[in-house]
């Protein structure tokens, strides 16, 4: 099998400086790299002009890697989503509120054992868990 031709999906957070705010980089991802994107969240900061995009990218492994190289060369900082949600173990009591508010069941409670699980692949960065956690145990760095 030819290397890098399998289609994969990845959720990435892109942080870009003010100089790139007007650069249509997602258009380039499609046109040049044939990578499909789904915008989950987009924001341009009023204070420092910095922008952030939360995207779900889909494409062949090779095209995805090349597009991330392109973005890096452009000056865009990229991160996968799971680094952007941190659950403080010592503060979490494993209640169930985050599972209750999570729209994609990225947070869930194991039946009967009643332990809490987090599946980063399902997270869309909506931030409801952080807002609703009664013990302030979740920190997010979503755009």
């Amino acid at each position, binding site marked *: 099998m030819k290397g890098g031709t399998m289609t994969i999906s990845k959720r990435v957070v892109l942080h870009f400086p003010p100089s790139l705010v007007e650069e249509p980089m997602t258009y380039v991802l499609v046109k040049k790299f044939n990578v499909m994107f789904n915008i989950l969240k987009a924001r341009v900061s009023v204070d420092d002009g910095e922008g952030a995009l939360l995207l779900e990218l889909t494409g062949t492994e090779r095209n995805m890697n090349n597009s991330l190289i392109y973005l890096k060369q452009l000056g865009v900082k990229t991160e996968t989503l799971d680094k952007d949600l941190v659950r403080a173990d010592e503060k979490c*009591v494993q209640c*169930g509120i985050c599972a*209750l508010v999570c729209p994609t069941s990225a947070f869930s*409670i194991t*039946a009967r054992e*009643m*332990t809490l699980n987090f599946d980063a692949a399902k997270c869309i960065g909506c931030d409801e868990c952080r807002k*609703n956690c009664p013990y302030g145990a979740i920190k997010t760095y979503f755009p």
Partner: protein
Amino acid sequence: MPKTIEEINAKIKAGKAVVCTAEEIIGIAKKKGTKAAARDIDVVTTGTFGPMCSSGVFINTGHTKPRMKITKAFLNNVEAFCGIAAVDLYVGATQLSENDPANSDHPGAFRYGGGHVIEDLVAGKEIKLRAYGYGTDCYPRRELTSSFTLHQINDAFLFNPRNSYQNYNVAVNLGKKRIYTYLGMLKPGLGNANYSSAGQLSPLLNDPLYRTIGIGTRIFLGGGIGYAAWPGTQHDPSVAKTARGVPRGGSGTIAVIGDLKQMKSQWLRGTSVVGYGVSLTVGIGIPIPILDEEMLVYTTVTDRDIVAPVVDYSYEYPNLTGKIVGETDYASLKSGKIKIGKKTVPTYPISSYPKAREIAQTLKSWIVGKRFFLTNPVQLLSGKESGVSFRAFGGRYR
């Protein structure tokens, strides 16, 4: 042959007491039978860890130079009750921060309040105190701006008027709009069902007729030692029971007391209930002495045996109608979904079962380690024969 508390304590002292948790006893009794289990097991430990709004701390700050009669006080900007003596204060768990917008900023985050002050106090953090008084000849100081930590003040004891609920409602929302309650957010049209109970590990559900629990019962409280001090407010032994004696809804409660200086903030947590308010999540564990086979049988209660009422919090609960949607049990609730009519409804816990388990295990290790002895209550919690029950407000509306 029935055992006594004295005999059990003698076994604890000799390092010979056999202790297990209310979860472990289920399997043990199934294997060897209740008669043998009652003979072999001396104590069954229970635990629960959930938001308990009726909680607070009595503080005596100690007198300043010159002395002061405090009439208004704020701890980290949260007002404390001062209408007792000169320097006695009560910090309530549900007290909001001064200028907190509450739910006017919908739904309301309630980031910091009484419960958080208590957690910070127990954690040894410095607490800012702003106090005011009208000044008297004997207490001339009229203003104080200061800070203190837990071990710098005279007294601090937890006193919670209503804790450790024996069973509780399961909340649902039959309305058309999302609502926010003390049992969490409820999605419209029976979108979810929330519950808050340790079920088979829950203290009062393991001694449902209060044969061993009452005033003076020594307990695990907030990571330290505490005592049941009084029947809790809204204590209601009149609730209908199953054949096993387990109440079919919220029933008994206890008021608890303990020295804050020997507790741990891990087990007394400030709680922000979005859209509702501030609370304190309290860890409680009660040891059940296995005095006879009847007591052992009570402790073998399982989640499947505990029935709870499903209540609509969009209309029936706020309007005190007493109407329920139906009943379910904790095994069904813990499976992750229940059937209400034709609808499959996802369920969510508000209290923490893993933490309840940890408390029962901790109390077990204290007893086995000879650090905890059981007490004989001076008066058992009132039962059904007392005629005590939950009453709605009986005064006049003006």
